[in-house]
């Protein structure tokens, strides 16, 4: 079983139909991106004056960064708290984070009006801008993740000495990585702080960054479970169920803290009136709120509390998927569904109540799909050709 993990380059990976599909999706996205660069963002998307940020920001930026949080959660567990038993889960989650952030940057290169000027953030700094903080953090964290992942790469190309050398100096980068992650995971919430007049009161709160950070930890843990469970099926390797079970045990605690903080804040800021507002103009928001609370927090909290569910491969995967779905819904709510923009150009009072006038276009979706395909393909290639899955006895471990 374990020997299958040591990757055989002659698995004829390139013949798999899945790879062809992924490559085709990437090709479509590339062509669409070229159209965007020549004719403008309007040529491929439904973004408008009232919806300057749409699907790309909600999916590629908010969701992409959120599901990349496994990398810093795992790095903190293994390196800072020295829980070395979790070592086998470290490399896949660092890779997921690394690829996730590369995908974020690619998406931004399509979404930005002037992608060629992205580096201006480093020379024209406006220190009151939350977006600047996110930009700087994501750029720096991408570098940190590259360093954290580089030992795997050097081992893969049989440069054990280089891998060992980098590994010696990894600690400062781990701490830097956790600090940068804390900053930008929470700052994604801070991005919306400037829109108290636009974001629905159930979501807008001054402690949005705190909520984002706590939920990022839950998402990170669920993501590690998800990718271990899925890759164990796809790559036919053993599932480290006893490790995942321990990890999953932490999720109810994180979610309980999240729920307590969130509902305390709603009480304090006097927003409880919106919780069950079934008025025609509010029912959509109420439904979204409860959907995200139930799926993202309450149901996973209950499921992960049962040891039986945590120990069953299907139970743990299913619960993780529910959590991820609910928490991703939260990111979509905050950055899209619950935002109401005034639009002086097409101002019609009756429409102000709804957000009906932005639906992403197909080419817009194809960009995100293409970038996502790239991520899956890159993960697959890394799993095939690099010592990504360490054996539990630490056979591939670069440490000592």
């Amino acid at each position, binding site marked *: 079983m374990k020997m299958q993990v040591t990757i055989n380059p002659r698995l004829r990976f390139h013949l798999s139909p899945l790879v062809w599909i992924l490559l085709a999706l990437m090709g479509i996205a590339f062509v669409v991106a070229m159209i965007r660069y*020549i004719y403008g963002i309007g040529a491929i998307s439904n973004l408008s004056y009232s919806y300057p940020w749409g699907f790309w920001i909600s999916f590629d930026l908010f969701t992409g960064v959120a599901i990349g949080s496994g990398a810093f959660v795992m790095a903190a567990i293994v390196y800072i708290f020295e829980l070395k038993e979790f070592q086998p889960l470290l490399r896949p989650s660092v890779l997921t984070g690394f690829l996730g952030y590369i995908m974020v940057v690619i998406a931004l290169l399509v979404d930005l009006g002037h992608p060629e000027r992205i580096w201006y953030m480093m020379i024209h700094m406006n220190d*009151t801008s939350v*977006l600047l903080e996110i930009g700087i953090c994501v750029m720096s964290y991408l570098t940190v993740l590259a360093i954290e992942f580089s030992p795997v790469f050097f081992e893969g190309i049989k440069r054990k000495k280089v891998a060992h050398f980098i590994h010696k100096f990894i600690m400062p980068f781990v701490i830097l990585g956790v600090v940068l992650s804390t900053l930008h995971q929470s700052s994604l919430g801070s991005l919306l702080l400037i829109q108290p007049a636009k974001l629905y009161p159930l979501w807008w709160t001054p402690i949005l960054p705190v909520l984002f950070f706590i939920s990022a930890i839950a998402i990170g843990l669920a993501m590690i479970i998800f990718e271990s469970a899925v890759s164990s099926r796809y790559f036919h390797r053993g599932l480290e169920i006893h490790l995942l079970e321990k990890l999953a045990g932490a999720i109810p605690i994180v979610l309980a803290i999240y729920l307590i903080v969130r509902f305390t804040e709603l009480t304090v800021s006097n927003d409880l009136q919106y919780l069950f507002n079934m008025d025609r103009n509010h029912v959509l928001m109420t439904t979204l709120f409860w959907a995200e609370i139930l799926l993202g927090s309450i149901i996973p909290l209950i499921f992960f509390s049962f040891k039986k569910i945590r120990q069953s491969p299907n139970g743990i995967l299913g619960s993780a998927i529910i959590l991820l779905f609910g928490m991703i819904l939260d990111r979509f709510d905050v950055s899209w569904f619950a935002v109401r923009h005034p639009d*002086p150009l097409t101002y019609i009072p009756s429409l102000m109540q709804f957000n009906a006038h932005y639906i992403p276009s197909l080419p817009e979706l194809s960009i995100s799909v293409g970038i996502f395909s790239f991520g899956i393909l890159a993960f697959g290639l890394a799993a095939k050709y690099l010592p990504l899955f360490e054996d539990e006895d630490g056979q591939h471990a670069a440490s000592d």
Partner: protein
Amino acid sequence: MTDIQNIKHKTFLFDATRCIDCRACMIACSVENNIPMDKTRIWVAGVGLMGEYPNLGRASMVYHCMHCEEPDCLSACPVGAYSKREDGPVLYNKNVCIGCRYCMNACPFGVPHFDYNRGLIDGAFIDKCTMCPQRIDVGLAPACVATCPTDALMFGERDDLLQAAHARIAAHPDRYINHVYGETENGGTSYLILSHVPFDQLGLPNLSSTPVKNVSETVMGITIPFALSWAAVLTGVTIGVHQFNKRKEQIAAEEARAKSEETK
């Protein structure tokens, strides 16, 4: 009245009761600022027909940049493309803009507009009202004000216009809503509005007197101290855990040695 270039705090006053929806301001603005025909920096928002026959009415509003005293776009822009001139105008510098459109999200009035129909070669930028600096610096009123046939738009010193606005309300309390929009909204704006219909019907958001950027700026203010202390805490925890584990191993090793000696 003082010369326009000497006004210390340049401000617009708009009176919805005087606006006849002729849209001459839109044309004047586009001509003055060389805006393509399909684009505009001014919109005339309105509620259309109101009331019931025979008491019909309509209201419209000239909508452009409010030139906030504390602009949120300026606070939000990551590369500092926005600036606020001391005498009023909020200006946008397209040479540093990266096209992130966060200013459009930040502005509670939805004013900055992005050009979605230009690619990389043409260059897509944000556009918004500039208060015509090329005119006010040589003593002319902004194009929209100069062209307004009914004096619905006026231009002058902020304090004077505020006084005038309150005087109008006092003279016709039955006609106006007793509030000057922009006096305190979002920390005060350089565009004051009088109206006979509720302001939200003109498309204006309901804002408090604290600028919307305040919470976000407070959070940004504590970011660097937080990052440094968080790094210190994490370093401390790392060293602490490491020492603790080392000590535990040592004790375990000593005990094992003691045991093996005992058995000897």
